[in-house]
């Protein structure tokens, strides 16, 4: 059996409130807070990107795994904000983490699902015996266009997971993927901001894929929602994952720990993986955990995890998601935010 042997997460310390963004555009902050269930979101510093987030999360994953990083035979980073258009983020991340040069590296892209994709492939390579350890990372510093609904949610952060066959912290019991051609959200080559299909992003996209993947994995495993202690669904806003969970028969209590979007925002490829990291920070042996990601385009990956008796001892070896969400935050104004996010043009 293969599973997770180490994990880590990283969330930048800067925040902007939904109220500050709403004020800028003359929108009603209460509509955003109550409608989308978003209070604030993380903002990357001018010196933070998918690569730096991956290195910080990956370093904690290595510490929690307690392995020699040079034994990691594959590293995949899922993101829609890779800093280079040509040159994989993973090349810098492996060198910074002391992995390689004997390592297979690739950058993945699938809107918000690229992180679970990296985890899925890492797991498969370890299960097949092709590599001893593999690291899958989901990280993003995503952008929403000014005055677009996405500006309230697009945030920064990510999580890293090392897969192996021995000394598992979390066993992977089952996986299931569900994909179709659904043009709900996209960004053409060379465009700065993504576009989305408005209401089209809900029913035929998010809900169809999340519900189908989750129902199928429950069917495949013979498990029912009440068997799980925790569940996390991709979090494009606060409302969607709650609605999806309830439709599937999960309770608020099961979803609460992984539902970190109200104060983190949507970290895209890092969204459900960081929610999973928040769950692993507190999970106890034998707890069953369900995770279903969603990426526009569109597809969902579902995983059923089971915590082992090794997990509690490793939890304190790295930063917890809660400590980064509730810890010191530096609130920025919309002007500072525009500067940090390259929305202001300067001469070279």
């Amino acid at each position, binding site marked *: 059996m293969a599973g997770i042997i180490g994990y880590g997460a990283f969330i930048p310390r800067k925040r902007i409130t939904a109220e500050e963004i709403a004020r800028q555009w003359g929108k009603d902050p209460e509509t955003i807070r109550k409608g989308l269930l978003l209070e604030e979101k993380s903002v990357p510093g001018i010196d933070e*990107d998918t690569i*730096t987030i991956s290195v910080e999360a990956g370093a904690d994953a290595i510490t929690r795994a307690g392995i020699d990083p040079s034994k990691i035979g594959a590293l995949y980073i899922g993101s829609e904000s890779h800093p280079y258009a040509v040159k994989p983020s993973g090349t810098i991340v492996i060198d*910074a983490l002391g992995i390689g040069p004997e390592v297979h590296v690739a950058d993945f892209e699938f809107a918000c699902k690229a992180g679970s994709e990296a985890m899925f492939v890492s797991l498969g390579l370890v299960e097949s015996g092709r590599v001893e350890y593999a690291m899958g990372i989901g990280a993003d510093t995503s952008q929403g266009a000014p005055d677009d609904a996405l500006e309230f949610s697009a945030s920064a952060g990510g999580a890293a997971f090392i897969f192996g066959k021995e000394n598992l912290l979390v066993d992977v019991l089952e996986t299931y993927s569900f994909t179709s051609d659904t043009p709900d959200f996209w960004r053409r080559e060379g465009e700065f901001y993504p576009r989305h299909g408005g209401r089209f992003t809900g029913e035929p996209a998010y809900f169809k894929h999340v519900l189908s993947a989750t129902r199928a994995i429950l069917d495949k495993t013979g498990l029912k929602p009440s068997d799980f202690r925790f569940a996390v669904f991709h979090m494009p806003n606060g409302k969607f994952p709650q609605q999806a969970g309830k439709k599937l028969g999960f309770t608020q209590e099961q979803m609460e720990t992984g539902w970190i979007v109200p104060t983190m925002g949507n970290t895209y490829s890092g969204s459900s993986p960081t929610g999973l990291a928040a769950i692993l920070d507190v999970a106890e042996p034998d707890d069953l955990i369900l995770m279903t990601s969603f990426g526009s385009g569109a597809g969902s990956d579902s995983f059923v995890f089971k915590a082992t008796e090794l997990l509690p001892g490793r939890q304190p070896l790295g930063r917890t998601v809660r400590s980064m969400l509730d*810890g*010191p935050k*530096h609130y920025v104004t919309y002007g500072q935010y525009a500067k940090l996010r390259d929305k202001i043009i300067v001469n070279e």
Partner: protein
Amino acid sequence: MPSPRYWREVPSRLRLEAARCSGCGKVNYPPRPICPGCRGKESEPVTLSKTATIITSTVIHIAPDDFLFEAPYAIAIVETPEGARFMAQVVECDPSSVGPGMDVSLEFRLIRKEARSGILCYGFKAVPTASWEAQS
């Protein structure tokens, strides 16, 4: 900084790899072929801790072009528990609060971009530990 130099410095910049002199025990960062302390040529590799203490610091108000958006910002000479000293930018704090004796952790960050189309240079910056713990 031209790309070839950045590339040569990857082990020290990205992994904090240093060298402890076999002759006098001085930790040299980045590693050097000849120890500036005793002229010795033998050394063993050592990886620096990601914690340090500020020895001295200053605040940059008039920044070079690459750091225009970051001014005002603090830079400091920091010392790791291994005794290695180097210069690092101090971030995630009010620059005027930075001073000698402050404990910092070293975090992986983008250091600079080589103009609009050049390479991205990464490395470590210092984040005050106290402000992080006091509020958490």
